[in-house]
């Protein structure tokens, strides 16, 4: 029942926007429903940690600790994104001279997007998971192309073509898993359920599982944005409206990674940990190297954030490669911390872009003196994202490295740290240019009403960072859930 309610909430928000023709009040309803998703997710988490997994909707939905953890991440970030989305919708309305069509389309698509992500993590069955992940691609295409500029249309085209191919490969992988499950004696109606896969995995044909998992990493890895399947990501994330970038970068990537984590658990039971580990280490190190090399020369701050996502997905993949419980718990904490920090940064970058009229790093200077609120949030967000204390990314990165050394992946952890140092230097260089320095003379006369965002806009941005800092300092509210979630996919 509660699972159906979680899925119904974003639909309700979308319906409110449709009924209210994208007016501000209806957009606030959507914010409230996303907040309710977060609250419901937390309540369900408490219940699941205490009493074990629950299922609903005739066994189509199932929530164990890992699923509810992802529900919390989705709830938190969709709350932030829909909050700032009100701003985006208001700007759309201005651009369209008060026409409600595009703001309400935008709002409804965002709510559908959130709904499909929730379905993906609550699906009991790998087939439904696939359908939901594919649906997230379809609903986000028009969000990426929403501005209808040449750049955004090009990004949308690349996005749907590359991700459709990727997700098709994931489907082929799923077919092979299903084949292995049927041959291991699974009953066709339930053979694709996670519980059934985990129960029978030790009897799956090893060579078939190798093929299947490789296809799944390739396929879902495309949606995660892991190199070398990443090429759509910087374009899509830089062209989409800021709240959409926040959702895509903050949660959609990790929802796809959730699929890999689940399949990895099945594969490990069938093959032992070696195969999945090798594969994940390769894509992780490739992603880190690629992010490092492209961040150095980056000239666009939204693209900078996009490449930074590729780096973090690489770190998460490396943590998952280590695979022990400690590592998985850290991976999940990293998913939450990265989601919060990255979505705040994308949302802030949207405000900066609206105020400054450019997404070029060169075009923005001395933000801290000219727009202290925006500049401050942007700076603190970058500090969080670069993995400095007190934010939770520091904790999770530290624990991941420790776990990697524990399982003999120390060499990979060292390589990752080298990439991180390069990225640190590159990003600090870009940030220094944007935040500090003397204000250029042309900007001296910038209208004062643009200087500070209103308080209702600043609240979610600061709140998101505060949450990221809070869970970095006090991990205790989460530790039970993280442990339970790690136990789901790590033996």
């Amino acid at each position, binding site marked *: 029942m509660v699972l159906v309610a979680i899925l119904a909430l974003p639909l309700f928000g979308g319906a409110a926007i449709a009924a209210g023709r994208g007016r501000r009040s209806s957009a606030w309803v959507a914010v409230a429903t996303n907040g309710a998703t977060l609250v419901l997710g937390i309540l369900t988490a408490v219940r699941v940690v205490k009493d074990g997994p629950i299922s609903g909707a005739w066994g189509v939905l199932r929530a164990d600790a890992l699923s509810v953890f992802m529900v919390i991440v989705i709830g938190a970030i969709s709350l932030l994104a829909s909050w700032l989305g009100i701003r985006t919708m208001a700007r759309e309305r201005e651009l369209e001279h008060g026409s409600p069509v595009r703001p309400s389309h935008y709002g409804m698509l965002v709510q559908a997007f959130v709904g499909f992500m929730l379905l993906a993590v609550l699906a009991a*069955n790998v*087939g*439904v998971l*696939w*359908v939901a992940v*594919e*649906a997230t*691609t*379809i609903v986000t*295409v*028009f969000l990426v*192309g929403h501005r*209808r500029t*040449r*750049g955004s*249309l*090009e*990004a*949308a*085209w*690349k996005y*749907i*073509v590359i991700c*459709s*191919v990727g997700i*098709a490969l994931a*489907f*082929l992988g799923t*077919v*092979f898993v*299903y*084949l292995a499950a*049927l*041959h291991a004696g699974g009953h*066709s*109606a339930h053979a*694709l359920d996670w519980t059934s896969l985990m129960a029978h995995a030790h009897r799956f*044909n090893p*060579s*078939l599982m190798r*093929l299947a998992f490789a296809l799944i990493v390739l396929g879902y890895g495309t949606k995660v944005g892991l190199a070398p399947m990443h090429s759509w990501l*910087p*374009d899509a994330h*830089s*062209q989409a409206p800021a709240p959409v970038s926040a959702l895509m970068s903050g949660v959609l990537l990790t929802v796809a990674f959730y699929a890999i984590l689940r399949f990895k658990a099945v594969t490990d039971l069938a093959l032992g940990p070696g195969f999945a580990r090798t594969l994940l280490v390769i894509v992780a190190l490739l992603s880190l190297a690629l992010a490092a090399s*492209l961040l150095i*020369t*980056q000239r666009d701050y939204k*693209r900078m954030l996009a490449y930074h996502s590729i780096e973090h997905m690489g770190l998460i993949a490396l943590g998952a490669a280590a695979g022990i419980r400690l590592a998985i718990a850290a991976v999940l904490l990293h998913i939450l911390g990265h989601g919060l920090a990255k979505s705040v940064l994308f949302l802030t970058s949207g405000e900066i872009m609206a105020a400054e009229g450019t997404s070029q790093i060169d075009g923005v200077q001395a933000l801290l003196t000219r727009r202290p609120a925006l500049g401050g949030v942007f700076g603190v967000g970058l500090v969080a994202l670069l993995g400095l204390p007190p934010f939770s990314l520091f904790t999770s990165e530290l624990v991941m490295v420790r776990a990697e050394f524990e399982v003999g992946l120390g060499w990979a952890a060292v390589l990752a740290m080298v990439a991180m140092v390069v990225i640190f230097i590159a990003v600090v260089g870009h940030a220094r240019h944007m935040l500090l320095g003397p204000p250029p003379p042309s900007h001296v006369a910038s209208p004062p009403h643009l200087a500070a965002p209103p308080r209702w806009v600043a609240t979610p941005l600061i709140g998101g960072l505060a949450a990221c800092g809070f869970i970095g300092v006090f991990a205790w509210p989460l530790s039970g859930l993280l442990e339970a979630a790690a136990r789901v996919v790590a033996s």
Partner: protein
Amino acid sequence: MNGSSYSSALTLAAGAVLVCAVAILWLASIRSVIKMVATQGIALGLVAVVLGVHLRDAGLLAAAAVVIAVKGVAIPLLLGRASGGDSGSRESRPLVNVPASLVASAALIVLAFVTGRSVARFVGTTAGALVPIGLATLLIGFFVLVARRRPTFQIVGLLMVDNGIALTAFLCTAGFPFLIELGVSFDVLLGVVVLMVLSQRLRIEFGDIDLDELRELHD
């Protein structure tokens, strides 16, 4: 249906899927390519029909009906309407010309048979022996995707990839449970609609172009 007529009907239908894939490489006019991809969708549906009759599986027959309706009729109709206004409705300058494409497709088919052999042996049924045909269709679809530059051709390439995977799924496992099959078909249909709307917007914004002329975004 007795054993030998089952196996020949299945081989014929699956073979038709692959023949359509090769024919698409050979054709240049968008209209005939759309007809060919419709034929491919129907052949795919017939594979499911033959399997469904043989296994007496009503779910599979229902899935076959969905496949024929979506891939054989609905998507080609939509594609035909969308490309109606496409003034240059030919692939005039493919990245790889037709003779070279056909040679490449032969190589891809060999590759599919080499890699698909182990899966085919594992499945161990008459249907399973045809798995390499599905993989070959998938690979040729990929090839169309990278070697053709008109938006409609890329959509067709994606459909071929999808048909190849669906064929593999039918042959390996006699298809997924029906509800999932329905969800998958619905996703594919929606995906094609989105692609077509997007390709029309591209045409409005950029004029009649090849996709590799999109050069707005780069590092």
